[in-house]
């Protein structure tokens, strides 16, 4: 995707956020509405300026290599965001240690699939031991709890 398209989409999305905030803040009482109103109005105007600018600004061409890696990038990115979301959702359901073990195995394998299979669970287990020793034993930092560990 070219920078011109990226800028147009981001200007539209952010412009919508600022416009919504502006309209929403109109319902606030006088004093609490001052800052949100001006910030969102300013943001909406600047987003409009950014959108208009995309029609006039000269952008540099994009390399063929950048276009080639796009599909792989999207798959990896979607995978990482999905893995993180599932991890966070399951932490309080299943339990921190079990979910973290699975997350490290899945994430490391997804990013770096060329390592020997045994390395994933072993390293994951090592990280868990470290987390337990540092956060639970040494620093008494609270960790999320679930049904299992």
């Amino acid at each position, binding site marked *: 995707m070219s920078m011109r398209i990226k800028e147009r989409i981001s200007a539209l999305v952010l412009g919508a956020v600022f416009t919504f905030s502006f309209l929403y803040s109109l319902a606030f*009482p006088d004093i609490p509405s001052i800052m949100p109103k001006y910030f969102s109005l300013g943001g909406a105007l600047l987003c409009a300026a950014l959108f208009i600018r995309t029609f006039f600004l000269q952008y540099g061409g994009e390399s063929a290599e950048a276009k080639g890696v796009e599909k792989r990038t999207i798959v990896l990115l979607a995978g*990482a965001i999905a893995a993180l979301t599932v991890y*966070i959702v399951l932490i309080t359901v299943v339990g921190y240690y079990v979910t973290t073990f699975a997350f490290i195995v899945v994430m*490391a394998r997804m*990013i770096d699939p060329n390592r020997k299979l045994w390395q994933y669970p072993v390293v994951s287990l090592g*990280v868990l031991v470290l987390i337990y020793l540092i956060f639970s034993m040494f*620093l008494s*930092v609270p960790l999320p709890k679930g049904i299992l560990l």
Partner: protein
Amino acid sequence: MLANLMLGMEAFTPYNLLLLMGGTVLGIVFGALPGVSSTMGVAVLIPLTYGMNPASGLILLAAIYCGSTYGGSISATLLNTPGTPASAATTLDGFPMTRNGRGGEALTEACIASFWGGIVGALALMFMAPVIANLSLAFGPHENALMAVFGLTIIVSLSNGSLLKGFISGLLGLLIATVGMDITTAFPRFTFGITALFGGIATIPAIVGLYSLTQLLSSVTEKTGVVTNEDNLKNLTIPKLKLKDLVRYPMVYLKCSIIGAFIGIVPGAGGNIAGYIAYNETKRASRTPEEFGKGCREGVAATESANNAVCGGSLIPMLTLGIPGNSVAAVLMGGLMIHGLNPGYSLFTRSAHITYPFLMGFFLAQFAFLILGLLGAKQFSKVVKTPKGFLLAGIGVLCVVGSFAASNNIFDVYVMLAFGVAGYFLKICGFDISAIVLGLMLGPLAEAGFIQAYSLNHYNLGNTLTDFLTRPLCVILIAVCILSVASPLISSRKKAKARA
């Protein structure tokens, strides 16, 4: 002063010294890893401090900051890839030295120069911060609001690509800062009935998301696996240290450290700028300028002493005026707040028992990385071989722990995820993450100052604005704000003209 120094002696307890060494090791490791910046290192390791007393926690963060700034020189020297942006200028002579088989010598010089730079920065911090904090006593709500505006003018310096996008990012941060109950009327703004939002967006999860998770997602999509050059690592030999190595270039250390400390104090100008300016100055004054860029040890000394001096300098405006001088200072400010501390005069009076051990810890951190860096340079250089998959998965785990442990609330982890994902998409569209963080951190200060000034004038906007334009300190601050916006714009226009 003596009493304050005595308070600082608490940094010498065995527990704090252990934390200092541990934090330095962690910092060097994080700094040496390409793609893991000092900001990300400090943000992701803040949860380590939750269970500690504030002084110890801050000493740990200081050690991580100083260690990571030095650590950045390891990958800059061995791989030609700066571990942190501050080390970018070190590649100019560090990597050529490695290619000439003098990598060990370059690492030794980087460590020694970093030490001297760090010492000058720490001294500037210890002696200048209390004085500036005293000056802040003269500030009323008008001046506080303008100080926040001054902090926001840094956006102009940060926005290399597009000023328009920089301002949009800043306004987005400011808008996000208004979420939660209004400070004067307790009216809930943008909370949509979610109780967890009544207190506002939690700063630490938002920062961890914006800096660490965004960087994680960026690294996931990069094609490279482990960025190593095996030959450079295999052939690395650390020369035996001689006493004269410690003060090989005294004038370079002193001059570049002063440049670095001064640049650190100026909000918005970071270690990378200091490195390049110091490098140019040293080259200009050198008897052998033709050696620079071909593997000149003096070049490494110049850049490393300057970028480490920035650390101390950057904390001065943060501790005294609540203006984070750079992104790491912004994260450290979050670390202060999590321990219930607020920047300003009270930090040096009511909370002196925490602040002075922290400042002393910052000073001692320079000795910690000097010892560790000289003894373990070969071992630290091996961390650049850490497999990317495990590294990123581990950072993901730390992001979650850090966000959760801040207030023992899973909602904060969702906030971190939302900020991380949104930050990634904004970053690839060319928006500046640091500008969002600045808005988020300075928004409450700006709003509180303005609303207080407004209420003092019985909610009369005309009188409030007249106040801003007639109070002497306000006039000075407005002039400083204009200067802060205009000078980078003028210099970039000059550069563009010169290129044309």
